[in-house]
């Protein structure tokens, strides 16, 4: 890495780095411990400063040696407190005279095993001998572990460096140390690298730049309340920050991007004079389909097309006069001018509870309380008997609505569709084709050319059949429409799998935003 030579780069130096650089002379070799001693760095700060400076090419490693350290174990700490086994055996014999091994164990508090091995060692060294009645007695008094006691005590402060010890100390230490699994030894042997660093040429020049810029590493970073209360900022300078330094991530509260898209659709519709309706997830066959003049034998009403509720399975009743009006309309057209479907309407089946399968339900249900003229819409969750995959969901939103008026007609319907196409979808071209829905006649589909998605079907619409409106007491024409907005929602969110709209993955939801 080339040496830094611009003041701007000095701003990227942390105060620890600044202080480190300023304290070093050219060619001076140092280790991390030296920084702690010179600069009063706390544990870890020296290492941080060195590693940052090294990665910037301002310091270089010049020597690395491996040294052995002897770290006192818990057992060692215990012996430092209570004495070594040899000391404790001798103490016991001194105070109570010759004893058998079990008696020594009891008196010294050592396990039999340790008493046995200690006797073995001390009798070999000539300190103990076996007397009458298998009693152990002192043969030659003295402290056999004097050197070890000193080492145990020194080990309390910091690990002992092999290089600091004389050969006799080292040999004592090695006899009570182990490398691994040192639970039964007094010291653990640890290998540690000792590294020496020195300034690079770049480091020297950055240090000189720091000096000439008058930076000390003591500049104020975070302004504190204390600075303000005491006015201490007045005589200090402020550390300039690197404006491009990475920032930390903020976890903020946020709306869900899909919900916001749905809101934008609702806002657009209300701005166009539509009033929102809402309704229950559980519906009767009556409102879901019969009121929409779908015959009870219609293939879209099979058990494999709607979800039936297990319990309760039927509504207690259907509101009159709507039930009778609809039943007669199915059977013979009632007074709607229709010939009807010509079958016996099943008044039990019509009470069957299902999960709402189409948003048009609420359009039909709104009719008998609707104002004339009136415009209504709903963004409604509907349920579909489909395998869940990238293009099918068990439940999803449908956007539906109606327009009631004495004089509304097909041309108004086309006008409305064009307005949706332009206002909601940003369409550049609009095409109408005849469509088919059981509850509208005439029926029209609107296809649009979207600037990103190209041509697709935006929605279906039509004028409600009199068989739908008259039973609800409505005698004016009713324009009904439904829009497919999921494809646009996916596009707006930069997604291509419908399941992602309802994702539970917090991270991806947090990161999501409008793509267009």
């Amino acid at each position, binding site marked *: 890495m080339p040496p830094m030579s611009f003041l701007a780069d000095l701003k990227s130096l942390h105060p620890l780095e600044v202080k480190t650089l300023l304290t070093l002379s050219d060619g001076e070799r140092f280790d991390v411990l030296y920084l702690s001693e010179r600069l009063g760095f706390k544990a870890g700060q020296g290492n941080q400063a060195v590693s940052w400076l090294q990665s910037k090419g301002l310091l270089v490693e010049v020597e690395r040696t491996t040294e052995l350290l002897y770290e006192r174990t818990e057992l060692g700490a215990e012996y430092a407190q209570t004495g070594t086994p040899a000391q404790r055996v001798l103490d016991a014999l001194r105070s109570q005279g010759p004893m058998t091994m079990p008696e020594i164990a009891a008196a010294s508090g050592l396990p039999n095993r340790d008493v046995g091995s200690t006797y073995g060692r001390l009798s070999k060294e000539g300190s103990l001998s076996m007397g009458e009645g298998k009693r152990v007695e002192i043969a030659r008094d003295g402290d056999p572990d004097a050197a070890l006691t000193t080492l145990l005590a020194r080990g309390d402060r910091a690990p002992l460096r092999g290089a600091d010890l004389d050969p006799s100390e080292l040999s004592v230490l090695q006899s009570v140390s182990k490398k691994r699994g040192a639970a039964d030894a007094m010291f653990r042997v640890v290998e540690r690298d000792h590294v020496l660093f020195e300034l690079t040429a770049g480091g020297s020049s950055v240090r000189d730049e720091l000096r000439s810029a008058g930076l000390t590493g003591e500049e104020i970073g975070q302004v504190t309340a204390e600075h303000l209360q005491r006015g201490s900022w007045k005589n200090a300078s402020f550390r300039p920050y690197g404006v491009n330094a990475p920032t930390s991530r903020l976890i903020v*509260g946020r709306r869900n991007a899909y919900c916001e898209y749905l809101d934008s659709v*609702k806002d657009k519709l*209300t701005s166009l004079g539509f009033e929102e309706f809402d*309704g*229950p997830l559980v519906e009767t066959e009556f409102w879901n389909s019969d009121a929409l003049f779908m015959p009870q034998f219609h293939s879209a009403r099979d058990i494999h097309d709607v979800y039936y509720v297990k319990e309760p399975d039927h509504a207690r009743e259907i509101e009159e006069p709507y039930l009778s009006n609809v039943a007669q309309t199915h059977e013979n057209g009632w007074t709607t001018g229709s010939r009807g479907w010509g079958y016996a309407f099943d008044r039990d089946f019509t009470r069957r509870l299902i999960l709402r399968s189409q948003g048009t339900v609420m359009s039909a249900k709104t009719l008998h309380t609707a104002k004339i003229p009136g415009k209504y819409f709903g963004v409604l969750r509907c349920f579909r008997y489909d395998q869940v995959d990238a293009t099918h969901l068990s439940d999803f939103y449908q956007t539906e609505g109606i327009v009631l008026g004495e004089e509304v007609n*097909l041309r*108004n319907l086309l*006008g409305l569709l064009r307005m949706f196409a332009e206002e909601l979808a940003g369409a550049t071209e609009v095409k109408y084709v005849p469509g088919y829905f059981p509850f509208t006649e005439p029926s029209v589909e609107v296809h649009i050319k979207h600037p990103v998605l190209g041509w697709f079907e935006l929605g279906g619409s039509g004028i409600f059949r009199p068989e739908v409106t008259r039973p609800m007491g409505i005698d004016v024409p009713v324009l009904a429409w439904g829009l497919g907005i999921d494809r646009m929602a996916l596009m707006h969110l930069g997604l291509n799998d419908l399941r992602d709209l309802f994702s539970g993955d*917090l991270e991806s939801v947090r990161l999501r935003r409008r793509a267009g």
Partner: protein
Amino acid sequence: MPKIEVYRDALMRCIGRSMSDDELEELLPCAKAELDEPADAEGIMKIELNDTNRPDLWSTAGLARQLRTYLGGAVSDYPFFSRRGDPRDSADRRVVVDAALESIRPFLVGFAVTGRAIDEPMLKDIIQTQEKLTWNYGRKRKSISMGVYRTDLIEYPVLYRAVNPDTTTFQPLQSEEVMSMREMLSRHPKGVEFGAIVADFPRFPLLTDARGEVLSFPPVINSAHIGAVEVGDENLFIELTGIDMNSLLVTASIVACDLADTGFTILPVTVEYPYDTPYGRSLTAPYYFQERCSVELQEVQSLLGEGLSVGDVQAALERMGIAATVHDTTVTVDPPHVRNDFMHGVDVVEDVMIGRGMESFTPEMPRDFTVGRLSPVEAYSRRLKSVLVGAGFQEMIFNYLGSGRDYIERNYPESEWAEQYTRSIQIANPMSENYEFVRPSTIPSLLASEAVSGNAAYPHNMFEIGKIGLRDDRDVTGTGTFTALGMVSADTDAGFNEMNSYVSAILYYIGLDFELIEAEDGRFIPGRVAAVVPVGGGTEYGRFGELHPRVLEQWGIQMPMSAAEFLLERMMKDGR
């Protein structure tokens, strides 16, 4: 919606002129059709038909008939139709019906064709028409099934009988062996597919000729002999059985007109019933049964928003292949032989619309002024959401169907499962147990989310405002849909106290006065769950607390969590 395959050449031949795919696509909307896939190497293209009430369009000849007249071609004449009191001569071609069929599969209509040898594309088209008509229009053969046979092997009269399924045997098509009709239900693929339509009757329908040779077992399978039509056959007998006479007659008319358009001569067949049918005890098909349909000119004008003249209306209908007469201001149409979708005057209006072409109508905005507004619960939700976002919560949105395990068992101690299941709305015919319940609470959705979000940076503060469904006897449906606010917090210091702070802040800003009372709820640590109630008591707005580690363990969550849920409809009642 049916999708059909047609030979491009055959379609163009039937239309009477050839055209590019672009031209065809321009033309297809008059039949509510779309080009799904252009012609492949074999010259076969796929076309989707959107009108489920127009089965006459589901074949090459039928689709071509509509396109041809729309382009100005003459409406074909079909002289072979019988009418009420005016049957065509059927010579010795008779079918005799057994009285026992009245309660099984009461109606049969048939006709025969002759005059040309059937070729490969034609045979394919007949089979496809049969499948589309009986599957889509005939509700998977329940209300209409159809059989085609080699007339040369038949001795009239044909007998439509009800027979003992265990003792009656024959060799069905697509099988090497003779078996009983009962055996066919389990051993023949068509028996497995369609057997259920007749399986519960003590006797099954059977068609034989005068000698007793089997034609078929309607609505299941033809015989391997008389019922095996091949390329080169010239004389065919076609019958349809079912439960709705009008559907049968219109379907028979569609097939007959298609074959007539292809160059066959149609030979009427008379069916003799021992019981009444809507058209008498002797019925000669093809039969024109449709009733006239009328609409006032004024209704056409007001629905379409155009001041059309009588001549305009007649010309538009003629393009659709519909003859219309006018008396004063009433337009009366005789539906084409192949259509039975004129139920109301508005059905005529639609054909006028299509006949004139969509491009002839200038879009215009409704003139009425209306006031737009959000529903009260949506407006209230938005107020809540802005407070929640300010409190640092991420909005989530979830699906409403899930499993009993996720919605109940993972959240409550086993001793409370039964009670919780009783409160929940279960689907009787779920697609899988993963989508068997309407969610009774938003909290399981939020926990499921937390369970897959362990890698996201903490804290996790999430909320959702969405619907939940519960059993509710106060409603006539015995169920209720409620708008719920669910909140969860997952973090090292999440707990009762933290959620209490959030709840207090949110309810303060939304303007709801409340009191807290200790609650019992198996989802939370005992003593760390509160019900939020109106000041002075009353139905709780909701509750919150510190989730029990047992619940978190069930979800595999390793971070402390608190949760809250409120019902907006209750809050709105008392809020400001």
